[in-house]
């Protein structure tokens, strides 16, 4: 299913500071949206999407916000726009943060992502929505994140990130 959120969802709502005190990703999954939307952590399933408005992930730099959503099994976050640190953290972790017009996506719509064609496909509504998924994000999504990328290549291989 798609979890629908409004504009300016900040990282204090995703992983609130008072609960954000662990380095265990599975523990973090349990506190995702713990106060903003308590049912989220209980009902979220592997393969679910987050669908949001503008500026998703604003506020603190805490990467736990990304880690928690990834640990919940979120397949991709589709939003009209993302706050920059959150977006960077998604790129680095290999989590798809897709910029697209989310206006008409409903929670029950079945979504599919076509990375190559840069599309979010709303199967239920038979609609294709133009999406922005930059090459660096695709590369690290396919590698499983920047740490695995550096392990696979070597520490001095950061420049290779930009080779397409």
């Amino acid at each position, binding site marked *: 299913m798609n979890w629908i959120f409004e504009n300016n969802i900040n990282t204090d709502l995703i992983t609130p500071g008072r609960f954000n005190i662990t380095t265990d990703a599975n523990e973090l999954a349990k506190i995702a949206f713990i106060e903003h939307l308590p049912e989220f952590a209980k009902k979220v399933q592997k393969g679910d999407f987050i669908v949001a408005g503008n500026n998703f992930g604003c506020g603190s*730099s805490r990467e736990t916000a990304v880690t928690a959503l990834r640990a919940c099994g979120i397949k991709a976050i589709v939003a009209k726009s993302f706050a920059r640190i959150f977006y960077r953290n998604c790129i680095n972790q290999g989590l798809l943060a897709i910029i697209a017009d989310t206006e008409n996506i409903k929670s029950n719509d079945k979504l599919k992502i076509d990375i190559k064609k840069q599309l979010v496909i709303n199967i239920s509504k038979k609609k294709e929505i133009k999406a922005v998924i930059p090459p660096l994000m695709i590369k690290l999504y396919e590698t499983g994140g920047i740490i695995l990328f550096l392990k696979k290549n070597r520490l001095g291989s950061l420049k290779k990130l930009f080779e397409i």
Partner: protein
Amino acid sequence: MGQTIAEKIFSQHVGKKASAGDFIIAKLDLVMAHDTTCAWAIDPFYEIAKKVWDKKKIFIPFDHAFPAPNVQIAKLQAKIRKFANEQGIPITTDGVCHQIMSERFINPGNLILGADSHSPTGGGLGALTIGVGSTDAAIAMATGTCWFRVPQTIRINVEGKLKKGVFSKDVILMIAKEFGPEGGNYKILEYGGETIRDFNVPARLTITNMSAEMGAKAAIIEPDEKTSLYLKDNQRSYKFDKKSLWSDRDAVYEKVMNFDVSDLTPQIAEPPDIDRVKAVQEVEKKKIKVDQVFIGSCTNCRIEDLDVVYAMWQKHNLNPQIRTIITPASKLVYLQALAKGYIEFFTKKNAIILNPGCGPCLGRHGGVLYDYEVCVSTSNRNFTGRMGSPKALIYLTSPATAAASAITGYITDPRKYL
């Protein structure tokens, strides 16, 4: 084609001309990760490296919740302490990371990474100081480098002489109202104009600090004689060349915005967003009862801020219904306040002085709020749940407005107490 100061600094750290839109790998002058973000940088660090690239260029402050308020946080701090010991990096517990970095490390022209969203603060010294997450911090600690997409710059000119009772916090709240929480997303915000030039570095740090709330990647103020003076005051004699650290006249900006602050009055951001900004004199009419006043954080608890509070409280007692909490931004500020007699004065006024650090700003310790409680805070973030209960209400103001509200017990325009 000319360059902005940000493009110049990126170019100097990549060894070739870097322009907005370029993807680059740049060398860093310093990497900071604190008691929250460093904990998550350790495992990825050891995945890719054994030793840090340069232990003298890594700064680990414990400021977000120090001393540890509970067992889980003590566990995180123990993990970081072990890492720091293994790597030979001293841990600093002298105050808020951005303040310590400004006092001790940040020089004009530096490129610095901080695993904290308020990293743009250091731009008040004419450096590029950029906030990232823990993975970037881990890679930076291992390699001394980071990948960047060079962002576009928005130039913000602020003109006009501020009236009495109006401070740099009021200026930046007014600008935040215009920008909203996304208006500066991915951008460098470059501040200039007569008003900014008139501010000393501590006041400038408030401007750059709050730029994070507009989404900025960094905020920057071209360095000048006031920057030199600040460095000198902090026992540093860094020489910088104006030509290499001022934007060229023909630099390309995404846009240029102009603000006139001659008639600005004290401003306040109502919960839970940074752009719900109103004039304090309007909000005062609502007689909003306050439960806690917090004078602290990386935004506003330098000695210049405490000078204002001290002066305002000379002839007034604080409302006994209110918890007034003061956290000096650093050990240096604490010692300055001690030498000026402020600590004794504030204590006798029944204010609570906490150790230098983030204090209650992020709701982990030192003044957590309960349901429906109202806090007037000099910090930078009024999000739902930020300082405790998601039902609590956080209003952001200058130290003067916070000090006035501590006297009356409701949100109060400070001008009648100045």
